[in-house]
């Protein structure tokens, strides 16, 4: 859930990326753009955007978003376990989105998205 929302928001241009050196290792940090129109987001996406109010690592996002989802009763504790990044469902959800993104071609007609 969070993974898919993160990837869709990332590919959808709602999240910026910054590379930073920490202890000699380069890491990616993510932050939501400040002008995101949250009226277009579902509850999980809203939480992802809320959690990315400042630059955070992917791991930090997963932990924080998981807590928020439970707090707002969007996910039960059991469901929140799916947030493990090596979980099969995690990979499946995100994989579909990524696979389609990799084949992305912009539309050729302006009348429709």
């Amino acid at each position: 859930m969070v993974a898919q929302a993160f990837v869709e928001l990332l590919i959808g241009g709602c999240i910026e990326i910054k590379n930073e050196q920490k202890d000699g290792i380069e890491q990616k940090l993510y932050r939501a753009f400040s002008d995101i129109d949250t009226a277009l987001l579902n509850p999980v996406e809203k939480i992802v955007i809320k959690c990315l109010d400042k630059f955070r690592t992917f791991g930090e996002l997963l932990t924080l978003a998981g807590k928020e989802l439970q707090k707002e009763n969007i996910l039960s504790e059991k469901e929140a376990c799916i947030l493990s990044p090596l979980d099969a469902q995690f990979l499946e959800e995100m994989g579909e989105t990524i696979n389609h993104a990799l084949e992305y071609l912009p539309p050729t007609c302006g009348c429709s998205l």
Partner: protein
Amino acid sequence: MAATIKPSRIYIDVTNACNLRCRHCCTSSGCKYEDELGKEEIISLIHQAKKMGITNLVFSGGEPLIRKDFFSILEYARNSGMEVTILTNGLLIDYKKAKTLIDLSVRVKISLDGACAETHDYLRGKGTFERTIDVLRLMVKLKCETLTVHYTVHRLNFLELEMLPELLRKIGVPNLVIGTIKPAGRAQINSELLIPPRMVPFVHERVNSVKRNAGIRIMSFSDRGWGEFGCPASCNKLGITSTGFLTTCAFFGSQFLGGNIREHTLEELWQSHLARSDIFVANEKCKKCPYLPSCAGGCRARALYYYGDINAPDPYCCALYNKKVFIDENRPTLLKALENPMEAFS
């Protein structure tokens, strides 16, 4: 070159009258104009279109079914061999009209702008959702294979898009078109409905996902222009307003109306449109864009709305190009994420 270009489709607004006052209506329809085209004038128009080789005719409005003589016009169009589509809110369709539409093999495109009453009714008026659903059920019961729901995505119904295919499958609607709200007519006044260009890549991602998983036939727009611009209004479609003026796209303002069918033949109107030099000239930004061969300029009405210039870039187009750039730049990360997202995104 221009003289040999022929349109393949004609839109005829048979009236400006409408039984609804939708907040996003691109033609701000409502009341009938005094000088609307009469039945004989519309029939002459269809005859001329046929002679020009146009095979595809779309009746729009206003609400076309509000005209008392509409079915005789429809019958003439079908008998002349035209493929005919009507764009309607559906609310005036009863059993008899439904039967006639099906017997005439007309493509019936009915607007549904929400997956629940609250959203649809907010846009179109109280009680319209239930009545529209009833009409869809009637058309399905009568086995209307061309029945198509047109869902115009806007800012307030976007989140319901994912629920729509299931609703339509339950009713039995065979076809769906997903369009996007345009900054034209009353949608310009109700601008809270417009999707900000900033969010277009995200919205596009979701629309594609819904299309992939819809389980219902998705009818796509395949309009495409020639040359540098993809806007079909430049070359392969034309429209006639209810008072007879040439308009190449309903989303353009009145300043882009051409001559009138009462004073010129349809062929003359078309040629004069092609000869216009003030529209459809590629701007410098688009000319430099590597994506131009693909997007071909996008929507001119959006360019006009956002930049006040019909030849400006389409901001939706630019946003979608940026999405492509982002994906290309981050391709290694995305590929890696398919196997180990933690490592890829860290």
